């Protein structure tokens, strides 16, 4: 340090505070101008644009992401809304279908029941007719049997043949009772 100073150009003016030695000002000003000029150049040309750019990129990215998030949220809201609407529609239509089905089933059952009743009525009528004819036939048989029996009884009791016409009339009178 000491040897350096003695070799230096400031040796003659050793006295006084270093900061107030005017003869050093030229050198300091020159090198300050060069160094600070360089710093300003690098700052204005490279550093400030780069960091400013990074910050701006980030700001636009963040606001872009936020906008995207907002849009997606709006989309989700719309989807929820349409989902709820579809759900309500489906519920309504399912109710309609149920009502329709119920009506249809009721109608079908009604028709079936009516057909069944008609069939039953027809069957009943047929059966009644059959019974009627069977009864008529049976009645016919009874008459002839009664006439014959009466003829036989009269013959056995009277020993003579009875008048057929009178016999039949008598049987018919009894049968009519």
């Amino acid at each position, binding site marked *: 340090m000491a040897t350096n100073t003695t070799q*230096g150009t400031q040796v003659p003016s050793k006295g006084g505070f270093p*900061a107030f030695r005017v003869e*050093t000002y*030229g050198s300091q*000003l020159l090198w300050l101008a060069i*160094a*600070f000029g360089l710093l300003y150049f690098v700052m204005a040309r490279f550093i*400030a644009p780069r960091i400013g*750019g990074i910050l701006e990129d*980030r700001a636009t990215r963040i606001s872009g992401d936020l906008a995207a998030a907002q849009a997606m949220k709006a989309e989700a809201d719309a989807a929820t809304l349409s989902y709820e609407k579809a759900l309500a529609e489906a519920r309504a239509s399912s109710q309609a279908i149920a009502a329709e089905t119920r009506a249809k089933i009721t109608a079908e059952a009604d028709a079936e029941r009516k057909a069944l009743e008609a069939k039953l009525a027809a069957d009943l009528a047929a059966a009644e007719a059959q019974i009627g004819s069977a009864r008529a036939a049976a009645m016919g048989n009874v008459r002839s049997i009664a006439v014959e029996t009466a003829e036989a009884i009269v013959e056995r009791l009277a020993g003579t043949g009875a008048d057929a016409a009178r016999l039949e009339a008598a049987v018919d009178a009894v049968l009519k009772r």
Partner: protein
Amino acid sequence: MADPIKQFELVPIVPITIGTGDFSFTNSALHMFIIVGLTAAFLLLTTSGRRLVPTRMQSLAELTYEFVAGTVRQTAGTDGMKFFPLVFSLFMFVLLANLVGMFPGAFTVTSHIIVTAALAMLVISTVIIYGIWKHGTHWFALFAPSGLPKVILPLIVVIEVISFISRPISLSLRLFGNMTAGHIALKVFAGFVTAMAGAGALGFIGAALPIFMITALTALEFLVAVLQAYVFTILTCIYLNDALHPGHH
């Protein structure tokens, strides 16, 4: 070591003489380039990735940028951002000059009045030249506050002019004074410590107090180094505001 003034001595490294003037490349010049190199390295290397999600160092660089940009916007308005490279350069230069000077054996560029005065004059010249270029003669309304009685107006104008001239003086003296005084105090206490320690066993005990003092002083000096850079920056912004918006007082 004993001489606390020694640290301010300029030592030529490459003697250069132009005409009769001495323009030697000195330890001061070397430290100026170290400051510029450190600034560029810090701000360029950490941001070379241009990461959207910053690394720790990149976010430190961004934080520094945002801090200065915020100061400029808050003090000089959004149109003050056209001076941002100048203000950021000044901030980084003063901050690193102050901090680099804290290292033992390092030279404090800002402990020389001519350097702080040159930086202050740079600011004031920018204010004057830009103010006149932008606002013409209206810029001189800066010296005549409105709403004053005509009687005292001339006095106020004179005082305003002196006040304007006092700005670069205040700007440069504050920085120079703080850096010089702090470093002298540090060196004086360091001298105490070595002197005490050299005085034997009793001296070691006696050195304890100065060591404590030197630790506290060093912490204070770091604080002062950062604060002075900030004060220089915010005053620069206040003065630049006058160039941009004269009459906004």
